[in-house]
């Protein structure tokens, strides 16, 4: 194998070079950018140290975005895991048309996020939407009322991504040997007890993995809220990612926007680390 050392580098070099340009450099560069005041429109390019972060600490819009992001992430991930597991249990019990069931589950998941956003925008249209029509023709402004907009965005996002959790759970459920359930039935365990003592513990590790990926995605989701509400009304649906994008490209405050983006970056990495610790502990317990 010694003579292959050079070959390894040769084969890896193109990929590494590409990664250096498109991921490694941008990852470091965004942090450097966040230490600048950079407004290309006015040819402003000044190093300002931590000033952008200091401003963020006292910035109500930033803290509002933090709250919205936290709420959005926690509620949508919880909603997805609970409904996802419920649906997986239902489909796992299917005896007929299971392929059709999986197919229907796949649908919301494989269409582009912008399509999902446009579909919900139209469903929730105040005067012509299906939802209001089914509610008896009331003109509820789902995406325009501060109290309703975030909930609407959460539901749309959960709708789109819940199938992912359901499919993972389904795959795990199908892997549980029938004999385990039969043994439980012989023991006279009730359905709920069987779920709690047998199915759930088997599901927990994959659900943790699913929740990790969903949390990471919820932290960085952009297309759906951007198209659905753009962060309004009164910034009640503005997540950190939207806030960063608005700062970056609405007025090209690249340095400040990069500082917000760096916060998202840090949150994503911290989340990944947190989950990996939990997962490891879970592994060791089994």
């Amino acid at each position, binding site marked *: 194998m010694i003579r292959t050392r050079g070959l390894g580098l040769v084969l890896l070099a193109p990929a590494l070079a590409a990664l250096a340009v498109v991921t490694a450099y941008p990852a470091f560069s965004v942090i450097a950018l966040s230490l600048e005041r950079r407004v290309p429109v006015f040819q402003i390019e000044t190093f300002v140290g931590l000033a952008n972060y200091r401003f963020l600490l006292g910035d109500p819009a930033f803290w509002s975005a933090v709250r919205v992001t936290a709420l959005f992430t926690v509620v949508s991930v919880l909603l997805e895991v609970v409904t996802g597991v419920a649906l997986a249990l239902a489909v796992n019990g299917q005896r007929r048309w299971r392929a059709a069931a999986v197919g229907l589950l796949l649908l919301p998941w494989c269409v582009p996020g912008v399509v999902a956003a446009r579909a919900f925008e139209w469903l929730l249209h105040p005067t012509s939407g299906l939802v209001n029509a089914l509610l008896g023709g009331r003109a509820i402004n789902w995406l325009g009322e501060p109290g309703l907009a975030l909930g609407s965005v959460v539901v749309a996002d959960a709708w789109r991504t819940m199938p992912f959790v359901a499919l993972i759970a389904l795959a795990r459920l199908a892997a549980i040997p029938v004999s385990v359930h039969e043994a439980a039935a012989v023991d006279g365990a009730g359905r709920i007890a069987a779920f709690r003592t047998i199915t759930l513990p088997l599901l927990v590790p994959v659900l943790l993995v699913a929740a990790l990926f969903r949390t990471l995605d919820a932290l960085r989701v952009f297309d759906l809220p951007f198209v659905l509400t753009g962060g309004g009304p*009164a910034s009640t649906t503005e997540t950190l990612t939207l806030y960063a994008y608005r700062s970056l490209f609405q007025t090209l405050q690249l340095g400040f926007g990069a500082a917000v983006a760096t916060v998202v970056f840090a949150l994503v990495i911290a989340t990944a680390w947190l989950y990996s610790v939990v997962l490891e502990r879970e592994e060791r317990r089994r």
Partner: protein
Amino acid sequence: MARRLIALALLLLAAAGCGNAPRADEPARLVFRHSRMPGERDPLPALLREFERRHPGITVTRESLPWTADVQHQFYVINLEARASGFDVLMLDVIWVPEFARAGWLLDLSDRWPGTARAEHFRSTVHAATEDGRVWAVPWVTNVGLLYYRRDLLARHGLAPPRTEAELAAHASLIRDRERDPKLAGFVWQGKQYEGLVVNVLESLWAAGTDLLGADGALFPDPARAAAALRWRRDLVRSGASPSLVTAADEEISRREFGSGRAVFLRNWPYAIDLFESPESPLRGRVGIAPLPGGGALGGAHLGINRGTRHPDAAWRLVEFLTQPDAQRAIAGAVGLHPTRPSLHAGGVLREIFDTARPRPVTPWYQTISATLQPEFSAAILGVKSPERALEDARHRLDYFTWGPRHGPQTPRRSDRPRRSRGRPRRR
């Protein structure tokens, strides 16, 4: 193997990259970027055909912009900043010209466009296209905020069109009380979180005797009056004098609400006049227009030329052609966007409204200011924040964004501001 892979990858990238290279010997093909014209009778195809007939060798392709001004702005900023040359002639909202000029995105038109020709246009429109003493765009169409009222309802209750905001609110509630029609709202306007909301609040600031920027460039020179103006808008929503839909309303939503007879007053642009007087309109002959209490905001569009254009002369010929009196008249006749030449305006109330209209602040920072104000104003009229809090938060942000973190979040000394706000001078 590896070398072949790399070669193939590079080849693919290269293939993806080319295809846009210009050829100098080609006849000029211009790309004209503009937002769609409202209404069914788009006058542009005929105008462009005429232009191509008169200028053999120049062809014009048009590409539409997204509909809302804020998205259009974002589109331009991202693209022009990166020196994109995908378009030659640009339709510019009146508020963007100084910013785009300062950024170096527009061709300087001062030498092509003589002073005598400029004098034909409303002075405010030329002023809006001027930055650093040079002219960067030619006024194309103009627009003004005005007050629509139900002539029949005001007459029935013996009222004249309101001349102050207090009168406007009083008339609205008086008529609603007396009509006893639960479906009838008082005053509809544009309160969605977008540029239109800033315009509406700005008109209230003027009515309250203050402005967005003071003479020295300071934001909210009279915070107490500014807060009162914002509170007046909030109170309209809270008291029900304005229906709750205004907090999500843009021009069309508010126009339809008034147009179907469900409101006494409407703030909008002149395009709605023809719609209210059309044969299908339930309000035909029952709508009057009046100046807004503080004067209406000037809107409209200019035509500018991308500095990165490969055909500056052909582009200038197109700008000249589209802004000449005949073209402006054709556009006004078809879609209700008005000429920028006073000589093409008839007399009457509309002329009076144009004469009392005021421009939004002419500053390269306008979009930054507006983008900062939009969520704050929206929060104030929805009652999420008090007007004072909203103004304070907006000022806090703008201090940071426009005058630089050197000062930190504190308010800088006033005398420092105008100079520092200008950024580094632009090379020409």
